[in-house]
């Protein structure tokens, strides 16, 4: 019998418990259902929970602890000499025992001692499984019996079931929150290790980025420089170019859609704009690298400008196109949220449509539009694929959009691609960069949400 059979059995038992609980409640109520505190189904759920939860808890706990216990018992049965091996080699030995037990290929000749240990391992595991089956099923039946005894007409089953449901929901949201906290913690922790090797001041204010360092002691290699300013500058440059594209285009299309477009046209244009947001960024990436960047290079050559084939300009413009839907759809929303009364007030004074838009609607919607811009910027800063493909890898300190620049995200990718050792500053630098990126986008997002929220309150 496998573990899934056991789970299935538990499920069947719980369903049975539901049925029994309901029946017991009905018989306890007698002829008058109103004497029951809760609806009959709640008694069913109540009993199903009694049958399922304790058994499931033991089941989970058992599976978590079993390998540890079995392993320590197997090690205890090994000969003295093997027990005193270094932790690393002992680990290898245990691995072999496990492989042998499950019929996999092992890394050494099968000695009789090893075979014996493997047999021991298999026996222990089998015993554990049987014990698990017995324990879980017994617990389920015990829970069922116990719960069933407690069912009376005046049992507050609904309240108890709902308390348990609430607990489930809390557990669910806690998992989400803890995962986020865990990611942040690991970022901070690894970045901390990086800052032991490289001082934060050098990282934040150094102007040279060259993360190549010697892997072996005898290797001839650059010492490595971790001044991240060129990356910040490159990120900023590309984001600024992107916003120069996305802001006017997005805002103008939003104004057109909200104020001028006839409803029929609007129902066509809006989804098309939103398709832009659905294009995978990797597609934008090769569009930038293979179409836009060569086009700029050739155009530049034709008019006597030197534009490198991986330029900040190409990456920035394509990124700008990518975030147009963010700007336009958020701006469209806030423009639509400006009350009709504002428009009528302005028209009533003899203002034309464009005067009304420029002097009343845009100023009224401005906080919301700014919030939308900030969200779009934070999206641009975190964007990776386009810049990896189109912006280049060289950490130039430049504000010339015709040159290749690199960004925080690109460097994180290049630092972590391929086989890496996880204790060299080169690899750890990625975590420090990630932390910086996280903090920037966090601040931008919080700022944007605050502004948007404040704006919403203005008209409510």
């Amino acid at each position, binding site marked *: 019998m496998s573990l899934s059979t056991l789970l299935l059995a538990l499920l069947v038992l719980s369903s049975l418990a539901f049925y029994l609980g309901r029946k017991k409640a009905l018989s306890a109520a007698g002829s008058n259902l109103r004497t029951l505190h809760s609806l009959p189904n709640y008694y069913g759920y109540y009993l199903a929970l009694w049958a399922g939860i304790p058994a499931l808890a033991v089941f989970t706990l058992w599976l978590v602890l079993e390998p540890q216990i079995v392993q320590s018992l197997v090690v205890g049965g090994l000969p003295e000499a093997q027990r005193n091996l270094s932790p690393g080699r002992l680990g290898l030995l245990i691995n072999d025992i496990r492989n042998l037990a499950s019929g996999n290929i092992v890394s050494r000749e099968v000695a009789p001692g090893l075979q014996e240990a493997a047999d021991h391992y298999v026996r222990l595991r089998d015993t554990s499984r049987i014990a698990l089956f017995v324990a879980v099923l017994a617990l389920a039946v015990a829970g069922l019996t116990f719960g069933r005894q407690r069912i009376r007409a005046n049992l507050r089953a609904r309240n108890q079931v709902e308390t348990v449901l609430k607990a489930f929901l809390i557990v669910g949201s806690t998992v989400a929150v803890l995962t986020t906290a865990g990611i942040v913690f690991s970022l901070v922790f690894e970045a901390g290790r990086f800052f032991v090797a490289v001082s934060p001041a050098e990282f934040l204010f150094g102007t040279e980025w060259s993360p190549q360092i010697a892997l072996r002691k005898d290797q001839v290699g650059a010492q490595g420089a971790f001044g991240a300013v060129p990356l910040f500058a490159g990120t900023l440059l590309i984001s600024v170019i992107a916003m120069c594209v996305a802001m006017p285009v997005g805002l103008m299309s939003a104004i057109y859609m909200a104020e001028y477009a006839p409803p029929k046209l609007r129902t066509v244009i809006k989804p098309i704009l939103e398709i832009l947001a659905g294009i995978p960024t990797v597609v934008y990436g090769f569009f930038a690298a293979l179409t836009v960047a060569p086009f700029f290079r050739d155009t530049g050559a034709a008019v006597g400008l030197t534009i490198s084939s991986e330029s900040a300009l190409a990456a920035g413009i394509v990124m700008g196109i990518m975030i147009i839907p963010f700007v336009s759809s958020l701006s469209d929303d806030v423009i639509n949220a400006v009350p009709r009364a504002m428009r*009528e007030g302005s*028209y009533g*004074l*003899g*203002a034309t449509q464009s005067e009304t838009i420029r002097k009343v609607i845009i100023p009224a919607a401005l906080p919301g539009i700014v919030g939308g811009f900030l969200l779009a910027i934070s999206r641009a800063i975190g964007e990776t694929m386009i810049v990896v493909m189109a912006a280049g890898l060289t950490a130039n300190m430049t504000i010339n959009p015709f040159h290749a620049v690199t960004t925080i995200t690109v460097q994180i990718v290049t630092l972590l691609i391929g086989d890496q050792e996880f204790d060299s500053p080169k690899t750890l630098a990625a975590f420090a960069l990630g932390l910086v990126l996280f903090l920037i986008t966090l601040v931008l997002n919080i700022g944007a949400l605050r502004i948007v929220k404040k704006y919403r309150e203005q008209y409510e």
Partner: protein
Amino acid sequence: MIAMQATTGRATDAAASPVPAFMTRDVCVFYGQKQALTNVSLDIHRNQVTSLIGPSGCGKSTYLRCLNRMNDIIDGCRVTGSILLDGQDIYSGSMDVVHLRARVGMVFQKPNPFPKSIFENVAYGPRIHGIAKDKTELEAIVHNSLEKAGLLAEVKDRMDQPGTGLSGGQQQRLCIARAIAVQPEVILMDEPCSALDPIATARIEELIDELREHFAIVIVTHSMQQAARVSQRTGFFHLGILVETGDTEQIFTNPRDKRTQDYITGRFG
């Protein structure tokens, strides 16, 4: 003095006062297929307050919004008949809606100051129409308008604060000042007091009476007491037709139509 054809369901207004500001004849309004107004003929006189009363949905606001072509903004809205402002057809091609609205100002049901400073709210219209030659003149216009709207004393120390920060009654007076600042001939008011408390309402009513000296005023109201208090002439609308029109006193003391009688005595509406 008044010729009335109430029995046909149509009222023609032929008051004997000098040239009316607005002369409207056989005005019909359609929203798509639905007809909202049928053959309304009414004159609006200078230096008088004309009130339009009637139950909800009777078409009085629709009529009001014809007078400065605010119905243009609504999709599928169509207006027929003739509406003459000083003898000029406002729906003809030669009438620029911007100029029309400069001559016919409007105050709305809910105070709707722009999210700008008090000064900018009032200066908005004059700026658009290029009324003021320079900053000094603009300031004079703003002060003058606020003065006429009876708001100057309350706001003169905080002209740069947002207009949205004022109380409801103050906001509505700000909107009136905003409309006056364009120096219109007619002011349309669409239930201007329905969002205000009784004290603010009394203040606005007082103001309307003062403004009559300079403008022709048309006010749509749900309150018959208000119509009786502020207006000299009254038109009663019902189901898209103008049932009866005449001097306010006559309408409220001696209505000729049964429906008017029923409405003002509270039997329906």
